[in-house]
């Protein structure tokens, strides 16, 4: 794959085509495997039927599983992986901190508080769903972190520390609500949600997740040169003609919104936003015009595969995808880390 990537990057268009093909193959693969294995031919026919009314003969139940359950789920997983990876790459580049990740901005903590407020405290009187609650919660937490970092003064350190403070505060509120009011059953459900869960995902979620991922990627990509200019820090970027404040507002806002939408759909899946950008750097270096799309691609592929694993690894049971991302991702990343010097 490394050879493929570096070879393909001699030509941007062919690289894009290779990436899209790779993504499509992975999505089809994800729709084909599962508790009942469905032949690839059926998957392709089903997709053809839905996309351009091809009129192939397919088993109705198989087609239902492929289209309604697995494919929508895989597309959301891809959007989510791409968004989290891009948000992570952007924040690491902007804040000049290798440990920055999308949840740094308090978003996952806020989402969990929002979700438990709806699910356990019954906020919103049944009108708000878990996702809406999580989305509102994440925005509240992000607003809190943003205001705090503005108050704390300029500098990237202020944002990171404000994020830590905000995350701790909202995590504490979540724990408080769960331990005080939740039954054991509810607590387990919340725990499962917090680790990420794609089970309930259907096509309406796709029409939210996919556009957000694409628009977010395009906006961030438009700022890739500005992100490069931050290589030697904020003042250096300013002296290179980058409108620093606008870049901060647009990029952090973009990363926050992408993350908030994804978290509200699937819960807070860890690891992807932190580690995928680093993995991408090993393959294509630190230039953001290459780093952002490749992060998005690897993030998407990784999360689709992790979702397949989470469905398959324990028969008859779906594991939280966050567990899988860390279980598979951590050793994989360790390998990249150790062999990184050979790769470069």
């Amino acid at each position, binding site marked *: 794959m490394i050879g493929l990537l570096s070879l393909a990057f001699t030509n941007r268009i062919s690289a894009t085509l290779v990436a899209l093909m790779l993504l499509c193959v992975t999505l089809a693969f994800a729709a084909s495997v599962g508790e009942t294995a469905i032949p690839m031919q059926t998957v392709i026919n089903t997709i053809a039927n839905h996309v351009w009314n091809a009129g192939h003969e397919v088993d109705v139940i198989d087609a239902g599983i492929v289209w309604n359950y697995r494919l929508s789920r895989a597309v959301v997983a891809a959007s989510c992986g791409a968004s989290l990876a891009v948000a992570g790459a952007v924040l690491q580049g902007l804040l000049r901190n290798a440990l920055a990740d999308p949840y740094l901005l308090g978003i996952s903590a806020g989402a969990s508080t929002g979700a438990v407020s709806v699910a356990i405290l019954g906020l919103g009187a049944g009108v708000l769903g878990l996702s809406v609650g999580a989305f509102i919660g994440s925005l509240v937490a992000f607003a809190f972190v943003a205001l705090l970092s503005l108050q704390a003064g300029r500098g990237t350190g202020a944002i990171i520390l404000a994020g830590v403070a905000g995350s701790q505060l909202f995590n504490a509120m979540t724990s408080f609500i769960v331990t005080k009011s939740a039954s054991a059953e509810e607590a387990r459900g919340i725990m499962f949600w917090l680790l990420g869960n794609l089970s309930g995902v259907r096509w309406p979620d796709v029409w939210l997740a996919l556009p957000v991922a694409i628009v977010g990627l395009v906006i961030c990509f438009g700022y890739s040169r500005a992100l490069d200019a931050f290589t030697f820090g904020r003042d250096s970027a300013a002296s290179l*003609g980058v409108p620093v404040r606008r870049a901060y507002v647009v990029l952090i806002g973009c990363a926050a919104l992408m993350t908030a939408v994804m978290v509200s759909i699937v819960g807070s899946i860890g690891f992807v936003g932190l580690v995928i950008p680093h993995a991408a750097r090993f393959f294509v270096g630190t230039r953001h015009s290459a780093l952002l799309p490749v992060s998005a691609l690897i993030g998407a592929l990784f999360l689709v595969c992790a979702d397949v694993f989470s469905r398959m690894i324990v028969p008859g049971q779906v594991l939280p995808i966050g567990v899988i991302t860390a279980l598979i991702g951590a050793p994989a990343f360790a390998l990249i880390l150790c062999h990184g010097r050979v790769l470069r």
Partner: protein
Amino acid sequence: MSLELRNVDWQAGFKKIITDVTIAVKPGEFLGLIGPNGSGKTTLMSVLGGLRRPSRGDAILDGQALKNIGRRNLAQRIGFVEQQADTIDRITVTEAVSLGRTPYLGLLSPWSQNDDAVVDDALDAVDMRSMKDRMWHTLSGGEKQRVHIARALAQEPEFLLLDEPTNHLDIRHQLGILELVRRLPVTVVAALHDLNHAAMFCDRIAMMDGGKLRAIGTPQDILIPENLRDVFGVSATVEPDDIHPGRCMIRYHAGGANTDVVSDFADIKADIKKDRIA
């Protein structure tokens, strides 16, 4: 082509860092900025470079206030090298210097052969062409500083601002950087710590003290024993440089930094001696 400050204040919160500074940089000169730690050199540099806006007064480039000139436009005319700018990214020398082309690039003006040529010229100017493929983190301090200067040169600026460019370098590289900078065909403003270096290389010297511009003039006018005593708190003799007219050399006197302490110490020593004898 002129860059000047008129009655500029800059304050952080309620604390004034620089007060009522008026200074004009002459085209083509090498202007040195000296002053003790905390005298406002770095702040003055960043106001000159348009990175900070004056709280009062005006920063003016060619008759136009800096704040009215767009960031990109400004970056095409003023290059700025910070005091210590490092990165954890694994980038090559060429990539670092290429960042200097940022103000010329956009969606509609992608990287071109001209940009390659400018980057190569900038690498040549700092004598780093042969190391263009080296990784940033393998460079020595002096080499990193050269790359920073090349990055600023790739901006094709009229003015080059350097904030203590020789910090943390050994003496050979300090002189090497300053020699290099003096040869460059741009107007240079550099904050310098070493007064002898300022005397050797600068056409004019501006002396800061407590946020104010104390004096500006040729090295021989500024670096006089009275100024060294009053502003820097050292006792020194200044000798004219016979080879380079207008320049001078400073010799510091040991123990001259704070004579009171020294004489106190001598008294104590004498007392101890007396005690022993008794």
